[in-house]
């Protein structure tokens, strides 16, 4: 049975042998060796102080999400959240083709937020990350603080902010919502990479300047984010086709609305803009599916992973960290910090705001009860 969950499902069941019988070659061929993580940082990637600080922030975020979903969790949302977690976990095991057999896989933070709402979505992905560290040895136990922050909280709330923002201008049709979800998926991955870079600014464990880390992280993750965005959009679109009532981020969906053409141009425009940014920012090969590792390799900062000192203070050797151009670095840090803060902050604010068309601010609304009225589909 061991290793079944590492399957990408490409080969029929009979290919497997029983207990723990996973041949190394087959694991590599099936891409099974990565159990799911693209950004699961190992122990000691950032300094102990940063690990503690991000741990406090993550615990606070989870606590807030627990408060917001308390009523829902008291009843129906527990099994639903658990199964959504299983879906995100399984979704991370699907290898999506990118080019010539290279595959990427879903991170799922924004997708979970769009499907079950930002509070529950953040909670579910946080549970996935913790379980992956605890049971599957994916990501260090001492790295949970920043792993939860970067993979659950920032994507869920940043993605939610982008979704709400794009939905203001996009039509409330299935396509419009799918596009908004896709852009949320793209943005969530980029925001997460920015968040990691900012943590690097404060908790670097190697003399690699912040601006280079930021450029590398954002560059690689923009490419990863394009895949994430396409998958997120398509999955949301597929769910909307059969159970639109399940998508919390699709409130006010107009099924009878006209099929808009304009959205296509919008998608192409956004795609081209993203590609230009990606090309400009990065000269890094992204053929390694593990973005964080690719960047680490690129910048050689992973060679210092773990060599952090309990004694090293936050700013003690900041100046000697080889900051090529301090002003550029500071400006970049400011821009990245503003972007992350703005997105996550407005995501939190938007998530906390009562929605007009959904009645009072009842967190229970984030989960559709079984048997609740489903919107009728014309011609379904």
């Amino acid at each position, binding site marked *: *049975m*061991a*290793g*079944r969950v590492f399957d*990408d*499902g*490409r*080969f029929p*069941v009979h290919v497997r042998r029983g207990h*723990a019988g*996973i041949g*190394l070659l087959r*694991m590599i061929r099936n891409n099974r*060796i*990565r159990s799911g993580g693209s950004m699961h940082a190992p*122990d*000691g990637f950032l300094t*102990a102080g940063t690990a503690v600080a991000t741990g406090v922030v993550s615990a606070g975020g*989870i606590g807030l999400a627990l408060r917001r*979903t308390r009523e829902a969790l008291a009843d129906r949302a*527990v*099994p*639903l*959240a*658990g*199964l*959504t977690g*299983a*879906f995100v*976990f*399984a*979704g991370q095991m*699907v290898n*999506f*083709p990118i*080019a010539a057999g290279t595959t990427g896989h879903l991170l799922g933070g924004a997708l979970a937020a769009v499907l079950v709402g930002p509070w529950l979505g953040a*909670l*579910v992905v946080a*549970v*996935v990350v*913790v379980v992956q560290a*605890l*049971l*599957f*040895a994916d990501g*260090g*136990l*001492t790295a949970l603080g920043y792993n939860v922050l970067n993979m659950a909280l920032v994507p869920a709330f940043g993605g939610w902010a982008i979704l709400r923002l794009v939905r203001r201008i996009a039509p409330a049709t299935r396509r419009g919502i799918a596009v908004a979800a896709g852009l949320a998926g793209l943005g969530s991955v980029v925001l997460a990479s920015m968040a990691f870079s900012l943590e690097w600014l404060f908790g670097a464990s190697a003399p690699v300047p912040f601006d280079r880390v930021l450029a590398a992280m954002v560059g690689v993750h923009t490419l990863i984010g394009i895949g994430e965005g396409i998958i997120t959009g*398509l*999955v949301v679109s*597929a*769910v909307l086709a*059969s159970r639109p009532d*399940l998508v919390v981020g699709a409130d006010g969906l107009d099924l009878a609305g006209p099929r808009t053409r304009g959205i296509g141009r919008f998608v192409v425009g956004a795609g081209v803009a993203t590609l230009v940014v990606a090309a400009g920012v990065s000269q890094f090969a992204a053929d390694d599916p593990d973005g964080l*590792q690719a960047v*680490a390799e690129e910048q*050689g900062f992973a060679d*210092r992973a773990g*060599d952090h000192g*309990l004694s090293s203070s936050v700013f003690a050797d900041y100046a000697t960290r080889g900051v090529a151009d301090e002003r550029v670095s500071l400006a970049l840090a400011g821009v990245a910090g503003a972007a992350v803060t703005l997105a996550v902050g407005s995501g939190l604010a938007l998530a906390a705001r009562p929605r007009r068309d959904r009645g009072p601010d009842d967190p229970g609304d984030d989960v559709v009860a079984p048997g609740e009225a489903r919107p009728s589909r014309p011609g379904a």
Partner: protein
Amino acid sequence: MGAGHSHPLHVHGHSVVHRLAPHVKVLATVGYALALATVPDRAWWAFLLLALLVTTAVVAAGLPVRFVATRALVVVPFVAFGALVPFVSSGHDAAWGPLSWSTAGAWAGSAIAWRSLLGVTASIVLAGTTELPRLLAGLERLHVPPALVAIASFMLRYLEIVAQELARMRAAMTARGHDPRWAWQLRPLATASGALFVRTYERGERVHLAMQARGWSGAMPPLREDQPDVGTPLAVAWAATAALVAIAARVMPS
């Protein structure tokens, strides 16, 4: 497989490690991981001692070597990456024939390999000797919010089922000739993933209804730890040794 009692990474047994109170085991593992993360790169002897410690745990748990070895294969990319580090690091200061590498990078690379291998092995011991209900009870005893424990519990119970559902969908798609290699071929996969979400969610709805039919009151029944605490001093000593090794490694000049 006894649903809910075991999980794919678990090995049945009755060793001291198996019978340890789960919250003690989790704390010991976290302590070990902390020690591992704070050992300086060049303290190879500390890594050796920590390796000895985790080997003691594996032996005490009576885990089959083959099981640990196959499970530990997940670290192959990190060990390979560690082996690559000396060559991709800046400041090459050593050479042998056509090869040149950075000494600092070599130390750092070896530390990455050590940390990932030993950290994963400790996690394998934890997962391999603790049934899911006991692990979740341990987390609850460590004051992890009950809602989180409940979500994790449902997730782990249904993960295998969802993964199998996914595998069936993929097998059916493969049987129909779907073998995507390029990004523009991924719509069927995404559609299948959407269908998987709907199926999973609807399963959750059915589970919820079934729970209500059985008198679900809105709170999970307490996950009771009914076994006596065994070997707690041993586990404390084990984690303390790891901590001492880490402290010694930091204090001693390398």
